[in-house]
């Protein structure tokens, strides 16, 4: 970041004095080369700094070696769980968004009006559009304070496009065409020291047609000088997710823990699906995971190695030589292309916290 800009001034001899702007040094880590995964992904997921999780939580007293506090169950004390329920059981495409410049929460209605006009204008290129009139597509922007981790987090912002039903305008509900959600759950790493003109909502979830995403994204990019980028999830991050989510307590054990691998460099694509009974997976994880509330990289590696060696014993296939493309658990499922489906309301914020962290590492 360009923190610490200093004023330019003239030196004693009248010479122009240049200022230098510094930003705090941020160490990155280039992920190990063998995860070649990101190379085939639509966006650059290859580079990230630090360990993907846990880095931000060092201030909570963890050792700096990449430990992690297990995501706390969502604190529901504020607001309505119904509101966050709309995030559940839908496939969301992930984007990272750089901080929004001069985004003003008090003006959400105005923004909705302008965005609506923008969408109409984009749809009928070159034709006049009046701002504020009733249009085919209704745009609604609203705050979702339920989705908030730390106090520094900005409340999430929900964007919904719905079509007006012409036939019975009043009583029937508008059909939602597309929805998107800006959020930030424990994104302190980004929002710390951010000037007040900027709003940090680094994670964006989109559900619906890509064409709407492009129009909405363009409008936000133009209006708030931000940049959207697809957020891919590296196989490395997927292993973390599967380990963490396997260990989460769920009232009724429902779906299997499933890992999908794809075998690289074959003429035909070959996917291997590896399903484990959730209780077996949890039992295995519980034997590996030592300290409650903390997970280490080593534990994740051991967990995956156990699964791999078990698979090898039966099928003589080294899964470690393939690429992990998708993981599904009762908590959530995640695909390396950056598509997630969250299934459990209790762990919603935990999942979003991880995704926020991934988004931040893509931005910084």
């Amino acid at each position, binding site marked *: 970041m360009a*923190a610490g*800009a200093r004023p330019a001034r003239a030196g004693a001899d009248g010479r122009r004095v240049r200022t230098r702007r510094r930003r705090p040094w941020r160490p990155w880590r280039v992920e190990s080369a063998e995860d070649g995964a990101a190379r085939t992904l639509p966006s650059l997921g290859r*580079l990230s700094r630090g360990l993907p999780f846990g880095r931000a939580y060092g201030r909570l007293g963890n050792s700096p070696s990449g430990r992690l506090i297990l995501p706390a169950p969502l604190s529901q004390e504020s607001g309505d769980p119904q509101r966050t329920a709309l995030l559940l059981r839908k496939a969301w495409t992930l984007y990272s968004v*750089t901080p929004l410049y001069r985004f003003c929460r008090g003006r959400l209605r105005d923004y909705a009006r*302008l965005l609506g006009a923008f969408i109409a204008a984009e749809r009928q290129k070159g*034709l006049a559009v009046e701002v504020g009139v009733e249009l085919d597509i209704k745009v609604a922007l609203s705050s979702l304070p339920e989705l908030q981790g730390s106090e520094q987090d900005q409340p999430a912002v929900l964007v919904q496009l719905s079509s007006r039903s012409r036939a019975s305008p009043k009583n029937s509900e508008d059909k939602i065409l597309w929805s998107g959600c800006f959020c930030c759950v424990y994104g302190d790493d980004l929002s710390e020291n951010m*000037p007040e003109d900027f709003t940090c909502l680094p994670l964006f979830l989109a559900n619906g047609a890509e064409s709407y995403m492009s129009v909405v994204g363009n409008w936000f990019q133009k209006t708030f000088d931000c940049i959207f*980028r697809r957020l891919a999830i590296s196989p490395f991050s997927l292993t973390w997710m599967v380990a963490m989510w396997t260990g989460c307590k769920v009232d009724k054990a429902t779906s299997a823990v499933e890992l999908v691998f794809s075998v690289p460099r074959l003429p035909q694509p070959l996917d291997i699906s590896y399903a484990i009974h959730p209780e077996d997976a949890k039992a295995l994880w519980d034997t590996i995971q030592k300290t409650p509330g903390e997970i280490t990289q080593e534990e994740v590696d051991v967990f995956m190695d156990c699964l791999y060696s078990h698979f090898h014993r039966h099928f003589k296939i080294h899964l470690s030589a393939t690429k992990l493309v998708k993981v599904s658990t009762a908590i959530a499922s995640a695909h390396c292309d950056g598509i997630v489906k969250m299934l459990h309301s209790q762990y919603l914020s935990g999942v979003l916290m991880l995704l926020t962290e991934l988004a931040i590492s893509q931005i910084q």
Partner: protein
Amino acid sequence: TEKMNQIRSSRTPKRPLEVDHKSQTDLSAWRKRGRTDPEKSSQNHQPPGGQKNDINQKNDVGGKNDSQEVSLEKALSYFEKVQGRVSLRNNSALQKHLAAVESIALQHGLPPESFEILLNVVLSGKFADTVNTRLLKSLIPASVIPENSVVTAVSWLCTNKSSGSIQLLFLRWLITVFDFIDHKEQVNALYGFFFFFLQDEKLCPYVCHVLYLLTRKENVKPFRVRRLLDLQAKMGMQPHLQALLSLYKLFCPELVTITLPTKTKTYFKNSEGPWKAAMNAVRQRNQGSTPLTQAVFLGTAQPQSRKRKWNTQLVLPASSARNSEVGTEKYCDLFSTDETFPVEQLQTFPQLLQNIHRLEFPSQMGSVLTNPLLLHYMNCVRDESIYLRLYYWMGQMLQEECTWCVVDNTNETEFKSFLETIYKAECFLQEGFPACEEFLYKSLPLWDGSCCRPEILKLVSWIPLSSSPEIKSYLYGPLAQLFFTSSLYFKCSVLESLKELLENWLNCNVIDMDPEFHSLNTTLSGLVTVVADLIHFVGRLSTVGLRLEKNSTLLLIFVLDFYETVCDMYLKYNLPLLILPPAGVFYPALLSMDSVTLNQLCYIMYRYRTNLVAAKENEESKKKILQFKFSNETYREYNQYITAMVGCLWTSTVFQKDTHPQGLRMDEELLNKTLVKDFKTSFNIVYHPAMLGYSVNFLKQICPEDTTLNFKLIKGKRWDWYLEYLYAQGLEGLKVFIESSINRVSQAS
């Protein structure tokens, strides 16, 4: 040809010969300004028919001779003067001038002055339709289209002198270039005329489109609504009529009471015609050369390739101001002036100076990169947020578009030009962008060393001086790996870019030596450490590189270029640091077969001496604020090198006196074994392999009759002559070295 002569002779009395020259210079002046002066063009506005050489009446501003401009000028004056019906066939003058207009229009677009002339010709029906069509198709604006030229054209349109197809093509042209017309008041005043043309069945769809673009609320009148409804009743539900009606309804719902279908996919047929692609091409070309013209093109669609994703277009955003409706009032009143100056209108430096207090940065900071005026402005503004916006934008663009990090990115030329744009902005600001620095650290480990090489290496030279130790692993590591495994030319360009990096750091630092700045978190000793690290790094690279490339002279020159900066750091940049080249660089240079290299080494050693002497003096006088001492090690190292050099070039004692551990000192027994007779004298300015050519030539000059090449003749007075001879050959480095480092008094005695 007789006809041609007639035309010519009819032209001559009207116009003196030098007119061509004047108009040509005027055009080039226009180009320099890159835009029209609205005042001037309105002054020049004259009623159609009476307009006489708008261009030519302007003052001679002085310009250059450019054959292209001449021919455009000639072509324009030809079209202006031409009379009667002229056919294209058998008329070489027409063919020539037509071709000139076409080629210039496609390449650069046409200047504003040319539209009136050409539209007059096209719509007056002087030529056959083939000519008119070709001219119309060439009407590609370079910047803007003056409103009065459109007004003139419409008045021609009303005379019906041109054929239907030309009228139609003109309307399509008007629709396409509508946004390029500089003002629209007078065109709007012709609303009724356009409306009249609705009755022409063929023109109707295009007239509707023009009207759609022109319509304002005050144009919506009951009689017009009635007329449109009549037309609709006659022609059926036509999408173009519906479009206009729906616009009328939008403005005056009380006048249009019929219900219109809400979902109409396309109201108007694609009327972009042959111009759109050419306009985009011209725009891109012009943008490259004169970024200032870009503001004129605002509001036109950006070229977008449909294949690519919406958020990954490497298009620098146009510098449009923030929509004031979007920014909160709090922000609008930042400067407590009534209004901000729209950034689109910022085109000249005086404008910048006059409005600097009420300028606002564009809504997307990325657009400043190609706008020198905004870069100037950026230099004056202390707002942190502008750097932060630029940081995020640039960082994301670089990562998303990097051709070797993202596998499906194949557009290397686009990425290259983006990198080049960043580099130019860095040179302009004399400062590296942090986003670019981070990008380099992230992407260099994955770089193959060939993709976008010049651009990447240029960007390396603007990495900001940072006191963090990580630069070693993020920059030096990957760079060293590439250096050792790549070609000689890559090695040379890496060294060149590191030399520029060092110079940029030093330039930045020499100013920061101002005592005030010492409160910075980077202390002086921190700076010295970072600079020293870079120099040691280059020392290692050079040593290994010279071994790998068998002491290539080319590489050696790049290495010594780097040390030419290093040796003067104390005096030139006020940095208390001197680092001598490693033996792996010094000895290959000293024993080089090439006099250029040896000369350069002599110069460098002379500068080291000057710097060290100055440091010693300052140290003794104790007057300097900066209390520091070069370590004795530096002096000792210098003395070792100087002993070797003097022994090698002057006293022929290099084998006895070179005390450097990697030096040339050898036991006499060993030297005897070589069976070289006069090994003792085999190294001095006469015998040194790099100097042998000079000494042979010198001998030939002083004793032309002696063919045995008796080098021993060069001594005493002749030794002095030989020195003079060498100096006269341009060995300035050798001269300053000998004059400073060798005590000639003792030598002469």
